[in-house]
């Protein structure tokens, strides 16, 4: 009998505010330890929090984007526990009255269908600092730069049934928050962190006991961690064991998981409303104002890309997933005029080059206008697709416009039929045996043999001969 996997996610999304959620200190990543921690972040005696309105705006934007219920009022609470990187001894978070209520996100499945994942709620809270265990023999260092960085924690219903669905959801969520501009989406720096709740059951049975695997910060680790944990739970049960409710960690390098703490060790966080902060009460009309500022969301953009540019749903999904990609794509299309070529170049050549150099699109050495220049020269026949790849490599390495590179390197396609004819004649004259073979061959064998001559001709023209013309002239001469 088969097993059904049940997955729910909790996602911490760092909001891209300039300053912290309750203090004026900067949120920029990568500064020297403790240089971006002010008196409030250090929890000096007597300090008080003041809520950053921008964090509220961003959380509400997310709520609007997922079509959530948004209550008029939300309340910050204190979540009490001791940890050295938690300076106040409590985290200011939300529990009973979160800023964003129930909503949903639709994901696309491999079979082309779509599935609705329900969001239970999303709440605002502050991030903790970091404990640094290296560099201090027998001691730990504390860096409070991150303490007080605004987060929204998004909690889904247990609506996902496989690692693929969970990853599809995570990618969609990434697309939404980056499109909204409320998160930089940089998972390697912890801007989005996933906690995965997993249980297995026989189809139709009640939910099994779940475990929570915490702090996964890449789509691949998340997928691996889910597969690992599902397998572990199934093996455990099939061997007569029982899943224990616990919090687990997954090591993406060794591909193994381990228990962090069991339910028995769970904290009593003693939540209560924070008396230093007033409830957040939305002014009438504020949500409408905010809704008017919503950018085109990934779902709508994907639909438009299919309709406007004639892309497949898959390609449209790829190109609309990230705001930066979508903008880049539309810029290329606007200046080169070929939506399909633009899509191919971005998803294949540009993506591969970025991947090789481990760069984000924003860091691409080839700007949208430059790529559009290459595509335009393919379209007007100045260069072949093959030469275009050469132009692209040169552009990636040394910069410059397509026209400059084509000019400097003499890569212009030869479309002068006289010049091509001359080369064809030379190749035919130099290869009498092959010509004979061709002419004596059966009709259906000939196209394959043609490749030899084309190759010789292209070689002689250094790849610049217009392939279409080469074919036409060659056929005429051989079949003569």
């Amino acid at each position: 009998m088969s097993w059904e996997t049940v997955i729910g996610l909790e996602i911490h999304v760092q909001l891209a505010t300039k300053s912290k959620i309750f203090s004026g200190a900067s949120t920029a990543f990568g500064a020297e330890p403790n240089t971006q921690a002010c008196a409030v972040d250090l929890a000096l005696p007597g300090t008080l929090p003041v809520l950053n309105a921008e964090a509220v705006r961003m959380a509400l934007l997310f709520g609007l984007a997922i079509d959530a219920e948004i209550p008029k009022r939300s309340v910050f609470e204190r979540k009490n526990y001791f940890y050295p990187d938690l300076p106040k001894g409590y985290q200011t978070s939300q529990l009973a009255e979160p800023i964003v209520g129930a909503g949903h996100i639709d994901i696309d499945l491999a079979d082309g269908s779509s599935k609705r994942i329900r969001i239970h709620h999303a709440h605002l809270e502050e991030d903790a600092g970091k404990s640094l265990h290296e560099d201090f023999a027998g001691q730990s260092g504390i860096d409070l730069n991150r303490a007080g960085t605004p987060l929204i924690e998004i909690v889904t219903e247990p609506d996902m049934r496989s690692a693929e669905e969970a990853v599809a959801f995570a990618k969609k969520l990434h697309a939404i928050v980056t499109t909204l501009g409320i998160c930089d989406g940089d998972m390697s720096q912890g801007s989005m962190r996933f906690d995965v709740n997993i249980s297995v059951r026989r189809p139709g049975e009640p939910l099994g006991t779940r475990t929570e695997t915490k702090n996964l910060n890449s789509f691949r680790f998340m997928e691996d961690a889910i597969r690992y944990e599902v397998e572990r739970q199934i093996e455990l049960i099939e061997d007569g064991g029982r899943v224990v409710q616990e919090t687990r960690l997954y090591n993406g390098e060794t591909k193994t998981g381990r228990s962090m703490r069991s339910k028995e060790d769970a904290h009593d966080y003693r939540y209560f409303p924070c008396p230093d902060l007033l409830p957040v009460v939305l002014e009438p009309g504020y949500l409408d104002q905010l809704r008017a500022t919503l950018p085109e969301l990934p779902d709508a953009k994907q639909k438009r890309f299919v309709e406007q540019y004639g892309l497949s749903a898959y390609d449209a999904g790829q190109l609309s997933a990230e705001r930066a990609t979508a903008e880049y794509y539309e810029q290329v299309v606007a200046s080169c005029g070929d939506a399909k070529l633009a899509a191919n170049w971005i998803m294949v050549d540009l993506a591969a080059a970025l991947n090789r150099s481990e760069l984000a699109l924003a860091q691409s050495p080839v700007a949208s206008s430059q790529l559009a220049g290459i595509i335009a020269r393919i379209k007007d026949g100045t260069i072949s697709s093959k030469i275009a790849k050469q132009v692209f490599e040169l552009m990636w390495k040394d910069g410059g416009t397509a026209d400059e590179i084509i000019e400097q390197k003499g890569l212009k396609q030869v479309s002068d039929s006289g010049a091509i004819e001359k080369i064809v004649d030379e190749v035919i004259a130099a290869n009498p045996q092959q010509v004979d073979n061709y002419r004596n061959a059966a009709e259906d064998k000939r196209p394959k043999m043609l490749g030899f001559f084309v190759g010789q001709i292209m070689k002689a023209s250094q790849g610049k001969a217009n392939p279409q013309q080469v074919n036409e002239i060659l056929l005429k001469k051989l079949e003569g």
Partner: protein
Amino acid sequence: MNLHDLTLAQTARALADKQFSSREVTQHYLDRIARLDKTYNSFITVTAEQALAEADAADARRAAGNAAFLTGVPFAHKDIFCTQGVRTSCGSRMLDNFISPYDATVVAKYREQGLVMLGKTNMDEFAMGSSNETSWYGPVKNPWDTGCVPGGSSGGSAACVAARLAPGATATDTGGSIRQPAALCGITGLKPTYGRVSRWGMIAFASSLDQAGPMARTAEDVALLLGAMAGFDPKDSTSLDRDVPDYAAALGNELAGLKIGVPKEYFGAGLNPQTAERVQAALREYEKLGARLVEISLPHSHLAVPAYYVIAPAECSANLSRFDGVRYGYRCENPQDLMDLYCRSRAEGFGEEVKRRILVGAYALSAGFYDAYYRKAQQVRRLIQQDFVEAFKEVDVIMGPTSPSPAFAFGAKGSDPVAMYLEDIYTIATNLAGLPGMSLPCGLVDNKPVGLQVIGNYFDEARMLNVAHRYQQVTDWHAQAPAGVMA
């Protein structure tokens, strides 16, 4: 004439008239502190050198013609207010080594107006106590009877004013910590409306109840000190954006027609009969001034102490979590590991009463008890507030005793926390409701002062000060000094 005979307002006027310099009056008080405070222990830290430098700066400012009314006037800060570069201990071993790197808003405002800080006053540890016996720095002695407590938690501020070691002082009140010590030391003190004075830089005990206010000998002095500290502060989300009136301007208004509510619940069992008599006499004095007494009921009064002793400990249990030995303050010797660091730093750094309240608060908030304690207490709090809202539909101010009896002997209530908590039975309700309350001297019992409590409506401090001032125009209880301190 001795400089310390002068009230704070008289001192300010004399400075304006150039009868003496700020340096002279500052030096005078510093000399008195050096000579007398060994007896009272009202200061934790005396900042003599800094005070004289500030006095010189104040004199220079006056010479340059841009002095504010209170420029050059000496005073003391309760050691709960963060003062840049000066130890801010909050009466606790936990912060004995803590030099604040920043100023509380109240401190910054006084600094800006050129008041001269003589030092930081003693207090119950983290403002938890009604006798000043919980201070790490030892108890403060009541200047009226050094065998008795000065009240708390602002006992140091009250005692230093009563002993004429400063003409005024700042204080804080979470459940009566300004009014009760003011009553027991025979001075005038006011706890403003919650949100009237910024809490930024004031070390939190119970955030929803804490409020700073002034102590001095007269209502006029208190009006001046309050005006200098009140106002909206963007750094405190719970401070309220309302104009600060000129509190001194309305002091002289007539009281004819004033309706004074007298809650019957404030004169029941538990009130010392002689204290009751002095308060009744004060009420009769108000009738002579043209006021009308109206008996009112605050039916949920008996629930104030129990509700308070859930809410205040709950908030303090979280507020005091930051004192963990990690970043500043007391750290135990040779911690073996993180848990040891936490446990011993807190066990050794905090005193018994603070630990008791942290435990009570953590318990009240814990899973399974939250609804029965914390949530219920918040519901009671709303009922208590509603009692006052109803009462203020009928009356202008409410009056009664500040505390059930005059100052008691050291150790008298030490073994019974609940007996100590009942010290604040008449003051706690106003904190729960967020209302302003003040205490002014209205008599002596066995040569120990009795306080009259005046409770006002929200932001009605000007009227309360007017009511207190008019009384002080026709009585002299506020002008009486403990034997021996005037020399």
